[in-house]
């Protein structure tokens, strides 16, 4: 049997487009379910992907969400062109958010996205450059 199987899916995410928001992570969830991954793994991957997708929609201009499934692990990579994060340590704190009032009214901006992504993944890396963009990479083992 093929031990080096790989499934790769990529989605372009548009900043500020709340109509399409969540569509990419829904599709990711459905596909991970269909390939028969353990339901807890699916949930953690889906939550990580959703939070990453929403952060691009809310905080960045545009980005790409890429999910790769390889033997034993899932990697979720969110790369965006955007303002970047000035203080990562602060941004990682539960409850910290710079979301506008408009966005809060839509039910986002609780400052729980990044902490949740970290909680859901086994490996979490974030790189950012002010004025350029942010790159979040998460790995979940199964």
């Amino acid at each position: 049997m093929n031990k080096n199987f790989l499934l790769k899916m990529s989605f372009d995410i548009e900043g500020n487009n709340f109509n399409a928001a969540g569509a990419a992570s829904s599709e990711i969830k459905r596909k991970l379910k269909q390939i028969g991954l353990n339901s807890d793994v699916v949930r953690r991957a889906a939550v990580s992907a959703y939070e990453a997708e929403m952060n691009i929609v809310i905080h960045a201009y545009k980005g790409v969400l890429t999910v790769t499934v390889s033997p034993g692990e899932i990697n979720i990579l969110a790369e965006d062109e955007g303002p970047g994060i000035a203080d990562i340590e602060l941004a990682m704190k539960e409850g910290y958010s710079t979301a506008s009032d408009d966005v809060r009214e839509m039910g986002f901006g609780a400052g729980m996205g990044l902490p949740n992504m970290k909680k859901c993944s086994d490996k979490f890396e974030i790189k950012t450059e002010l004025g350029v963009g942010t790159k979040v990479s998460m790995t979940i083992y199964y």
Partner: protein
Amino acid sequence: MIERNYHSVVLDREKCKGCTNCIKNCPTEAIRVRDGKAKILEDRCIDCGECIRICPQHAKLAKTDELSILNNFRYRVVIPAPSLYGQFKEYMNPEKILMGLKKMGFDEVYEVALAAENVSIAVRRYLSEKNNPKPGISSACPAVVRLIQVRFPDLIKNIVPIKAPIEIAAKKAREKIKKEKGFKDDEIGVFFITPCPAKVTSIKSPVGAKTSFINGAFSVSQIYGDLLKNIKSVKESDLDGTLQKASGLGVGWGRSGGENKALAMGNTLSVDGIHNVIEVLEEVEMGRLKDIDFIEAQACIGGCVGGALMVEKQVIARTRLRKLSETLAQNFAVDEYVVLKEYDNNYYFMTEKIEPKHVMKLDEDIAKAIEKMELLEKTLERLPGLDCGSCGSPNCRALAEDIVRGIASENDCVFVLREKVKELAEEMLELSKRLPPAMGDGDFNRKGEKNET
């Protein structure tokens, strides 16, 4: 008699015209049209009855029992769903409705609404215990339970593992009759008056129990005519006020929101209509409803008053039931203390685990499933994306999935077929221009191309 793969929803092949209304509305994509007739994929069907409601030919039926099975039992009990009261103009006089029902050949009536009170108290206790997964999800609607098995296996742990009111009603009725009348279990027949096919399936092929306490089910629409006549023939003097016992809280269970009202605790959410239920369950699965303690989820719009085998319009039945439950007593008719003692003795718990049904998986083996997923995506790219349904699958993606699963072919798509026919036609035209080597007019070569001059 337990059939593992029993389904109440069946197709009347004669009536089916092979239109695509049902396949497009099925919440688990469990129907295909093959050879001009709908075909239900048994392992995906959750018996919600959406197809019964939507079929313009009335070709989807619910299998229920024949009234003649009453003859197999010495003592016959009828257990009507709380939603039954809203089906009649006499809704404000439920005693009369129950008497009419009894006259159809039953020795005794035991209201499911009464058992709904027991269940309310038991669920409330269960939710107050620490460490039970949040939010709890009601187990009362069997279509929702099956939906979770098929589409949300991760949420099985959230289903409150307490038996549905119909089972508790049957259990209680049996105990009462054995004690008061001395009949043996197999002499007692318990019959449910059902609003929906899902409940029939839950009796014939239970989830969370090995067997049901109920012997048969008749639908509201099946007995409606006779029952209506009976109700009209009941005289006030026939009534002694002993049949209708449940409070407004128990009766309220028949419409959406009623279960939560009876629970009267915590942060609860109520959702009705199978497509809305799916939306809410997606949220729960993503961990976004952690602040909710309990979800009352019902497959039918309006709750059981909107069941697929009901007769009265949902809005009317729902309003009637609300009025009735508001005029009845507002505290439980059952003894809370007794119920809690029974609860501690495991009286209310399901006896079997609810198992996930992995029917959405492409393959048991992850590597193979991924291969199939890639094939599915490639196939999908070749399909037109119109989701027209003429291939007999609900949408282009489902056809691609069916192709990968080996139950359909790409040529089932009329657009792919047309494209292929066009290619073939062009090739034939091309071929027809070719001439045998000895023929030709010099201007064209054998391939039909113009010769350079």
